[in-house]
């Protein structure tokens, strides 16, 4: 298969030593196996995430997203933009849809972009990495690269909100998306398909500002994973990963629980299943160690 | 009946041959049934079997055919012999399928079959092939009463089918209420904007149609006759009266808005700025004529805030106002709010509702109203208080759960609903004595019928019908209601309704011409024949006929109008001297059947229970019980009847006198939600049976020996249980003491 090339929008958390740097490392490993070339959009900026609205109205937020498109269109023409972060993808896509729907908004946006010497043309598509995997490769092709099936490991697939709503992955449902489970199964792991908290909100950005309320959500998400016998949670979203992993200690303090549930990225699973080392899968980036994955990573490949 | 030749056929198929001695049945048909031809066949409904019967009719001169096989509801295509009288002995569903296949049950099963063969033969002897109604007439002209959208639509649609029409309109112009509207709610996608009423186009089409005659400023002074031959006096305002003949009538007399003056608490009558929906239409038309916006009536001031109060005097459970919902008013208020919003989006329009009722595509119109900025609030209005040129509308906001008010409403529109123009309620006004008939100015049709001048009503003043399955079937054959007189409706529905009513009127004409019954015994050619010489002028038949088919002459003898008749036999059941009969269904045909049953003597310990089952629901339920192989007592003998209303009490006393141990009557539900297909039949039967206790006492019999049941067609599991419980009850009270005397 020929090398696939994409304009990469890593987002603020995924950079070197950011809170999702383990995501970035594992995505890079995974892409290497899949022969995918990711070229970072030069000088990309923050998407505004989901909690910047006290600072501005929607136009400014569309403009900052349009800037990334404009940069990609100028410097990496013809390439789809790929985001790994749910919020980055959602915000970029929202901007693309809105600018496509309103000539007024498009004109206003370009008027503002001119201040930075840029222009939005609406030529590039923005896609989540998961879309690339499913649509450009397909489960079968992804499965062919597996050398260390994740046998015996039970995964609670936690999809969360923003890779799922309001846009979601094509063909998947808002209430019960199956792609993460299918990815797990493709990697030879056991997917806990009945895990009922797969689209529960973790509090998102409000995990910071409203910790008590968010941690109630996080408790449900982790508890249910235990109820279903999960060895670990897997997620496609960096904010979900951080919230659900980091706050388990707080939840334990508050609720007297003894949670110690690893929360991993699909890209980490895939890196391990593709024969990558624990380091390549950035398993050293886990605050709660994903021991079972580490064990598999340490074993020799089956084929 | 010298030329009667009975042929009896005993089928051996479907297990009948194995379960029954068909030879014995054949012998019974021959010896007791006096059948001239008796044949057994392994597969009677096969082509060969049917051909055998056909040959006997054509070559052997069989005039009466008894088929002892399956139920009369089965194999109807095969056993269709229109030139001869046919009876069916139900040996399959009614005997072998409802009896256990055991040695112990064999004797009782055979006895059942024996009796049904006897019954079929004896019934036949008293049956004739109906000759058809001699009263047939066909006037291919329709009368439409009412010149609104419904009436004009009915006229145009009937005309397109080739029928001539006369429209009689009370007012001086065609158009009705719809002509008073500024716009109508849309009937087609995208359901966004108020639409032209289309009334002008309708009027033009009516006026251009050479098949349609319009009589304005005219009313009906008298209607007599029957489908195919109605005679109608049309009285003009000028005083002239013309008598015209019609084949059928469509009553499209529409509605009157509920009188808003009964709603002073909602401000009506206390300020010109409180109007009903009709009043708002008038304002809108006046404004449009002037080319300006709608002004405030009190002072011609600018309208900045309009409040629409839904369900004003409707959906009322206090008993003071209309209890029902008129259905169209939510959409009408949305439309009226758009009058303001379309002219000036700055006008505030608020619709206060409790349930917003815009079914179907009305949801799109609702959305359109919202997108135009019409505000909708779920609120219960308690008062409208006029003060100067403004009104305060007080209401409970049911969502925010608080009492609140809209101050400074320039205009308040009350959605008051539709009251049907149904004429007089014949159950409430006294009827004219024969020979004393006078027109009533309140009546719409002024029917010169024994039972009253207008159509019977169901509830709330709307015409009576089986309004779910058979909404057009009024209780006056040949007269069909259309539009809001039938139930509340909007223009779109009235157009559909009027088109359907026109069809029913056309059908009534065609049925009358062929001498056929209308629904539910469609195509039945039998009709009631009365032996007037025996009549005692008791009037029971004329009073009880659910369809007002029987008038009285000046000597109070009944005058039957066959094409008004629905062939239920209620008159026959009512007649104390038994002078009313149908050629194929009479006191004799049923009497002969019940007498044909062999009553074992008192020592045999074999009770006999007569079941008179309504053929519409109870009999099919028993059939289906058989199809499901549900077992019930072998002591019953079932006779289907056209309606429980046709049951003459003589059958009961005959049966008891002959030594039957009990009689079960199975009919349909009566009362407000009646299910009787003849509307009143089961109710009348119930009334008659409530009087039977006296008869039983005179005969020194227990009252339990006659029992009435309300039965539904779905009672497939319940009916066998009822029968068995009743048989057990008879077991408890013992066999009839009258055995052997009959």
């Amino acid at each position: 298969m020929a090398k696939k090339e994409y304009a990469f929008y890593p987002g603020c958390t995924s950079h070197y030593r950011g809170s999702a740097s383990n995501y970035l490392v594992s995505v890079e490993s995974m892409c290497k196996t899949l022969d995918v070339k990711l070229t970072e959009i030069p000088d990309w900026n923050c998407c505004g995430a989901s909690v910047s609205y006290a600072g501005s109205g929607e136009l400014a937020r569309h403009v900052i997203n349009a800037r990334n498109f404009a940069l990609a269109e100028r410097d990496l023409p013809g390439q789809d933009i790929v985001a790994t972060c749910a919020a980055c993808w959602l915000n970029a896509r929202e901007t693309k849809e809105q600018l496509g729907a309103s000539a007024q908004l498009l004109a206003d946006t370009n008027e503002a972009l001119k201040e930075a010497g840029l222009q939005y043309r609406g030529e590039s598509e923005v896609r989540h990495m998961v879309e690339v995997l499913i649509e450009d490769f397909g489960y079968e092709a992804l499965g062919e690269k597996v050398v260390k099936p994740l046998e015996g490991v039970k995964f609670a697939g936690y999809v969360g909100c923003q890779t799922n709503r309001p846009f979601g992955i094509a063909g998947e449902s808002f209430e019960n998306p199956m792609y993460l489970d299918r990815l797990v199964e493709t990697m030879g792991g056991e997917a806990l398909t009945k895990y009922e908290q797969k689209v529960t909100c973790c509090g998102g950005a409000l995990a910071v500002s409203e910790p008590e309320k968010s941690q109630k959500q996080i408790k449900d998400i982790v508890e249910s994973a235990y109820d279903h016998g999960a060895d670990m949670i897997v997620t496609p979203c960096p904010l979900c990963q951080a919230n659900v992993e980091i706050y388990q200690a707080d939840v334990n303090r508050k609720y007297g629980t003894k949670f110690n549930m690893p929360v991993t990225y699909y890209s980490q699973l895939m890196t391990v299943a593709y024969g990558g080392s624990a380091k390549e899968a950035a398993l050293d980036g886990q605050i709660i160690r994903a021991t079972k994955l580490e064990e598999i990573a340490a074993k020799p490949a089956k084929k | 009946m010298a030329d009667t030749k009975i042929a009896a056929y005993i089928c051996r198929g479907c297990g009948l041959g194995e379960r029954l001695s068909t030879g014995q049945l054949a012998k019974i048909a021959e010896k007791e049934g006096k059948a001239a031809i008796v044949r057994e066949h392994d597969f009677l409904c096969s082509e060969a079997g049917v051909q055998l019967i056909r040959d006997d009719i054509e070559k052997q001169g069989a005039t009466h055919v008894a088929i002892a096989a399956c139920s009369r509801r089965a194999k109807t295509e095969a056993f269709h012999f229109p030139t001869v009288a046919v009876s069916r002995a139900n040996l399959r569903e009614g005997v072998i399928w409802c009896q256990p296949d055991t040695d112990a049950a064999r004797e009782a099963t055979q006895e059942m079959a024996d009796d049904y063969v006897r019954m079929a033969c004896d019934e036949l002897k008293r049956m004739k092939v109906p000759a058809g109604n001699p009263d047939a007439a066909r006037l291919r002209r329709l009368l439409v009463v009412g010149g609104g959208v419904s009436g004009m639509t009915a006229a145009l649609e009937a005309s397109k089918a080739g029928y001539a029409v006369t429209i009689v309109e009370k007012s001086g112009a065609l158009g009705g209420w719809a002509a008073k509207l500024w716009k109508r709610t849309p009937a087609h996608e995208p359901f966004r904007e108020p639409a032209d009423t289309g009334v002008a186009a309708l009027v033009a089409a009516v006026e251009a149609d050479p098949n349609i005659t319009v009589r304005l400023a005219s009313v009906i002074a008298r209607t007599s006759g029957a489908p195919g031959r109605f005679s109608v006096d049309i009285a003009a305002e000028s005083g002239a009266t013309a008598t015209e003949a019609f084949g059928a009538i469509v009553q499209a007399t529409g509605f009157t808005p509920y009188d808003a003056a009964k709603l002073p608490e909602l401000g009506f009558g206390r300020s010109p700025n409180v109007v009903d929906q009709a009043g708002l239409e008038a304002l809108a038309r006046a404004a449009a004529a002037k080319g300006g916006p709608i002004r405030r009536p009190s002072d011609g001031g600018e309208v900045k805030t309009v409040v629409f109060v839904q369900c004003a005097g409707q959906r009322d459970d206090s008993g003071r106002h209309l209890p029902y919902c008129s259905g169209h008013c939510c959409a009408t208020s949305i439309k009226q709010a758009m009058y303001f919003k379309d002219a000036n989006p700055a006008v505030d329009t608020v619709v206060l509702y409790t349930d917003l009722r815009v079914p179907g595509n009305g949801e799109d119109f609702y959305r359109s109203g919202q997108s135009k900025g019409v505000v909708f609030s779920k609120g219960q209005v308690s008062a409208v208080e006029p003060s100067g040129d403004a009104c305060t509308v007080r209401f409970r906001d049911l969502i925010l759960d608080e009492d609140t008010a809209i101050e400074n409403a320039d205009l308040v529109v009350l959605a008051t609903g539709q009251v049907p123009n149904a004429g007089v309620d014949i159950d409430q006004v006294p009827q004219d004595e024969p020979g004393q008939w006078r027109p009533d100015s309140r009546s719409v049709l002024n029917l010169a019928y024994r039972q009253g001048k207008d159509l019977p009503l169901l509830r709330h003043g709307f015409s009576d019908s089986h309004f779910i399955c058979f909404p057009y079937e009024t209780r006056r054959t040949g007269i069909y209601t259309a539009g809001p007189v039938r139930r509340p409706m909007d223009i779109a529905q009235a157009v559909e309704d009027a088109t359907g009513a026109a069809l029913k009127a056309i059908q009534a004409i065609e049925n009358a011409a062929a001498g056929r019954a209308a629904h539910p015994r469609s195509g039945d050619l039998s009709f009631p024949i009365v032996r007037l010489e025996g009549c005692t002028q008791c009037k029971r038949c004329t009073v009880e006929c659910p369809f007002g088919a029987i008038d009285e002459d000046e000597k109070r003898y009944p005058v039957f109008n066959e094409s008004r008749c629905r062939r239920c036999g209620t008159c026959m059941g009512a007649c104390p001297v038994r002078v009313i009969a149908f050629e194929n269904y009479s006191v004799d045909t049923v009497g002969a059947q019940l007498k044909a049953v062999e009553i074992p003597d008192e020592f045999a310990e074999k009770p006999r229970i007569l079941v008179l089952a309504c053929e519409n629901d109870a009999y099919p339920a028993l059939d289906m019980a058989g199809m499901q192989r549900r077992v019930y007592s072998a002591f019953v003998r079932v006779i289907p009847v056209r309606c429980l209303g046709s049951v003459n009490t003589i059958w009961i006393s005959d049966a008891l006198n002959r030594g039957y141990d009990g009689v079960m009557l199975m009919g349909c539900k009566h009362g407000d939600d009646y299910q009787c297909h003849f509307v009143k039949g089961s109710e009348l039967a119930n009334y008659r049976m409530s009087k039977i206790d006296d008869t039983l006492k005179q005969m020194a019999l227990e009252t339990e020996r006659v029992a009435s049941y309300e039965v539904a067609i779905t009672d497939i599991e319940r009916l066998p249980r009822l029968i068995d419980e009743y048989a057990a009850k008879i077991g408890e009270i013992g066999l009839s003491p009258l055995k052997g005397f009959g």
Partner: protein
Amino acid sequence: MPGDAGMGDMADLNERALAKYRNDFLREVEERVDEGHWVKMCMQCGVCAGSCPFGPHWEHSPPKIFLMIRAGKREAVLTSDSMWMCTSCYNCVVRCPRKLPITTIMHGLATYAQRLGLAPKVQPTRDFSIIFWENFTRTGRANEMRLMLRLWFKEGFAAGVKKALSMRDLGLAMLRTKRMSPLEILGGHGVKDVKGFQAMIRKAKEIEDRRRGLSG
């Protein structure tokens, strides 16, 4: 971000809005709030309120806010902290039978309340939002390290130290797993064209204010 309105401007803006729209809060929302023109399309089914993960914490749920807007309850809506409870999970949006972009409207109401100075003064999400905005618009990218410190120290130095101490374990874990870099305090990463980036945002705000009648 430099150039933002101060408190005085805010009060002035609010006065002018009151004068302009009088009782017609719905029109004010339609003209000035992101996606505000959708508010009138709500039919009060309540599915959004029932779908919200933070639903129990909203004083006024979204449909109630929509109804309050129509009922002219301007102050109660704009001073409410309800809109600040939105986690941006989009559950309401995908279930709304009228397809209202509820998340965006809630954010928009928060934006507008903040702009007029009516937003609750002590509201953690509001604070976070302001800090976040300032954080990423400074360099073009969010700086997690600085963001954390700003948040911890927003109520003063002592409170910040205390908070930092309480978070010590987590901080150490993040450092150990290389998911946090202390070097970020010293400037950290950002876009190269900060000037252009900021100019572009300024321009966007200026255009939006013009369109919404909020400028000068």
